[in-house]
């Protein structure tokens, strides 16, 4: 799908008539329908992927065709599924009942800000489901259907669920502003679960989920390839610093099992983050192991249904138990930490075979992870810095002027806000915050979370990422910010193209793809570490970039 040139999209997002720019659609939302066409939907799941997960109704189909080849009696399947979920999730039942449509959420959604599509206002996204719920359950539905805004379950409604539950990244920004805390993530999750009951899902989620299940990681890297990829990174670290940071794999008896999103192992710029982890662990002499079996921190089940989420997540504890480690350390990832912080212990705990995490370097006991036994790398690193256990030279990051992007889930489903900032303070000479309405609990999503970072919807992603890109551009222009630090693998995969699109390069460097590069926080940590026995006058960063050397001080 061709994506418009940035010059064109810059004009059209601001001037095209839509609900956000001030134009009001003539027809009621119940009477409108957005056609599916190449570019506005993610490709449907391949039949073999649907079958792999044991989901029903595997077939070849496409959203832009009229007939979605739904199974016989699909309406009943959906309505029964809804009933079951109303009985299982209080959040769903409550949020179906109590919304007053005050509109506070409307302009909080990045998809709405970028597309102006009224059905991307969180309240209307939820009404797509709520209208059916009311049609089934509200008192007076027989006589007052129109006034209550009810709709029977039709193919058109189902198609809208598909379109708009995959134009939501479950980022929870709307729920921060909702006076009742209504969380669209809960609603989107339910709509996606229901759609899977009739075989409606996208490939970019189900295939990585299948890979994660079989090979341990979402790219489907087999154990030897996984190890090999890391060995390449070890070689690079050796070339840059002169230090051998070779890790162990699947080693029984290690103190700590380290799990990070597999993207950090094979894709730029995540690999540089991984090099940062390797240096950090070497620096402190951590007794840790990696696992090829539990080689995926991310969890594509979260984007599918709660059963698959539990199944994929189960590997972490299973592997920790098999290897006999004491506790688990988790790398930088947003939705991974949503699962670890809010779901893992409930789903797959209690992890009695593990110990309450205790930093072997500082002795700090992580009481906040006493039951889950899993610590976030930023918590771990901040604690090391606080206790002066790291020899850091922030000047090695003098060529970086970062701003910090809070990822949705660590911010709004965990409350991990100041640990990364504490680390940033220690590893770079200076950095700058974005607009206060775009950071911390009010942070904007990268626009491509929950399995939407697929190429066929690139324009949509650039639009939904606009609020984030816009805030970055602001600090880029004001303070010369030239890199976007974060603690999320999906961010590293999606913000880079977002920056390349909205903030194209203006300098002389012919190799530059943007003025603001995306960088994992641990890369900045690793790059600032002064290692024992490192090559003298190290002059390269972890990307082989030239370090700014300050001769006057040298």
């Amino acid at each position, binding site marked *: 799908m061709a994506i418009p040139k940035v010059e064109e999209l810059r004009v059209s997002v601001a001037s095209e008539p839509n609900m956000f720019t001030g134009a009001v659609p003539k027809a009621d939302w119940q009477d409108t329908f957005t056609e599916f066409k190449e570019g506005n939907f993610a490709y449907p799941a391949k039949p073999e992927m649907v079958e792999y997960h044991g989901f029903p109704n595997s077939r070849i189909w496409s959203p832009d065709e009229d007939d979605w080849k739904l199974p016989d009696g699909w309406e009943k399947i959906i309505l029964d599924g809804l009933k079951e979920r109303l009985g*299982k999730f209080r959040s769903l039942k409550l949020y179906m009942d109590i919304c007053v449509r005050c509109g506070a959420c409307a*302009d909080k959604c990045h998809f709405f800000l970028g597309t102006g599509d009224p059905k991307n206002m969180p309240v209307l996204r939820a009404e797509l489901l709520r209208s059916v719920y009311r049609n089934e359950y509200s008192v007076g539905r027989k006589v007052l259907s129109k006034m*209550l805004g009810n709709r029977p379950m039709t193919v058109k409604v189902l198609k809208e669920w598909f379109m708009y539950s995959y134009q939501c990244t479950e980022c929870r920004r709307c729920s921060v*502003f909702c006076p009742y805390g209504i969380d669209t993530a809960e609603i989107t999750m339910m709509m996606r679960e229901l759609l899977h009951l009739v075989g409606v899902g996208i490939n970019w989620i189900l295939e990585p989920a299948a890979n994660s299940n079989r090979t341990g990681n979402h790219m489907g890297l087999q154990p030897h390839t996984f190890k090999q990829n890391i060995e390449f990174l070890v070689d690079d670290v050796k070339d840059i610093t002169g230090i051998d940071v070779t890790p162990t794999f699947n080693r029984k008896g290690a103190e700590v099992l380290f799990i990070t999103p597999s993207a950090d192992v094979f894709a730029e710029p995540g690999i540089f983050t991984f090099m940062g982890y390797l240096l950090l662990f070497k620096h402190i002499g951590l007794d840790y192991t990696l696992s090829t079996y539990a080689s995926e921190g991310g969890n594509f089940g979260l984007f599918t249904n709660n059963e698959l989420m539990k199944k994929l997540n189960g590997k972490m504890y299973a592997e920790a138990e098999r290897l006999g480690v004491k506790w688990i350390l988790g790398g930088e990832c947003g939705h991974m930490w949503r699962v670890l912080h809010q*779901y893992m212990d409930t789903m797959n705990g209690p992890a009695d075979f593990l110990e309450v995490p205790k930093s072997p370097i500082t002795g700090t006991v992580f009481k*906040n992870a006493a039951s889950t036994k899993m610590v976030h790398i930023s918590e771990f690193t901040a604690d090391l810095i606080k206790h002066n256990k790291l020899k850091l030279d922030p000047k090695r990051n003098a060529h970086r002027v970062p701003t910090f992007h809070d990822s949705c889930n660590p911010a709004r489903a965990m409350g991990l806000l100041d640990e990364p900032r504490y680390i940033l303070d220690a590893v770079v000479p200076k950095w700058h915050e974005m607009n206060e309405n775009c950071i911390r609990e009010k942070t904007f999503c990268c626009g491509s979370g929950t399995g939407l970072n697929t190429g066929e919807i690139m324009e949509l992603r650039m639009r939904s990422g606009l609020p984030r890109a*816009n805030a970055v551009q602001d600090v880029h222009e004001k303070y010369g910010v030239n890199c976007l630090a974060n603690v999320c693998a999906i961010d590293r995969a999606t913000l880079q193209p977002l920056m390349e699109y909205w903030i194209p390069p203006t300098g002389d460097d012919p190799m530059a793809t943007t003025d603001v590069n995306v960088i994992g926080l641990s890369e900045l940590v690793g790059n600032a570490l002064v290692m024992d026995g490192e090559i003298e006058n190290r002059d390269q960063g972890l990307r082989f970039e030239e370090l700014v050397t300050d001769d006057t001080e040298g």
Partner: protein
Amino acid sequence: MKVLRPIIAVLLLIVVGGLLGMSHGTQMLAGVILPSIAFLVFIVGFIRKVLDWSKSPVPFKIPTTCGQAKSLDFIKADRFDCPDSKSDVIVRMFLEVFLFRSLFRNTKAEMHDGPKITYGPNLWLWLFGILFHYSFLTIVIRHMRLFTEPVLPGLGFLEYIDGFVQIGAPVLYQSDLIFLGCVTALFIRRLIAPQVKYISLGSDYFPLALIFAIGTTGMMMRHLFRVDVTAIKQLTLGIVTLDWTVPANIHPIFFIHVVLVSTLMMYFPFSKLMHMGGIFFSPTRNMTNDTRAVRHINPWNDPNIKPHSYAGYEDEFREFMVDADIPVDKPLPPKAEEPAEEAKED
């Protein structure tokens, strides 16, 4: 139509109330029986709804964290926006229920050329909302004078405060004015703010129109028709003491008011107005953010969902793992077979 029909419905209710209120024969129905039933419907409906919510479990602990969590000693936690203990949750809920904390965060996003998105403060909804709710509460409490004898302690003081500006006789209550002003503002907001207009349903306009009519008829009783309060109190007190009487000479406007209020009570448990009870149940607000420290139990957690086992994984990849010097649990089968394979390749 979305706007007109609810208004017509309210007008019809006014006509019905007026008709019933005109003859003494039907005043018992409109003034005593209907509100009694309505009150029962309200109570029973409210409780049933709450019980219905309670029946569904909260499988996962999903607070929306709106501040720094409690983690390391040297990182300052934001206790009330990211509560770690029950007492912190109580404070968070207090702030939500009594101060509309989350709505107070509201911003207004605007698109400018560039593109440039700006986020300005937007407190009108919070202001109208909170004034509306508090004036409504004040009015409901003031009405307790009609249902208690001797009147509840403190009511006189509340009335004194509420009539502090001392305008008119009988004195004009500020809460009445604020109440009507806010209802009107909230109604107009739905008509003129394009995004809100687009999402509004008939069931959003109806309660506002109904409440407006309730406030207006209430004020008309007091300031325009100067109804016989002693007679009304005889009726209302009779309702609660089950001594049902309708004194003569109560102005029909009273019955209109009562029919409207009864409608609101009966409508309440089956509508979005249940946000009043629902806010206390919202899992994103009423839970502690301590999921990693204390295990939360999901009653329907399925123990049969297991991960793809390590053994199965190793069986599939054992050869590769051994080749790559990755430790395995089960060794490869004896090497005796290998020459045969090599021979084949040759």
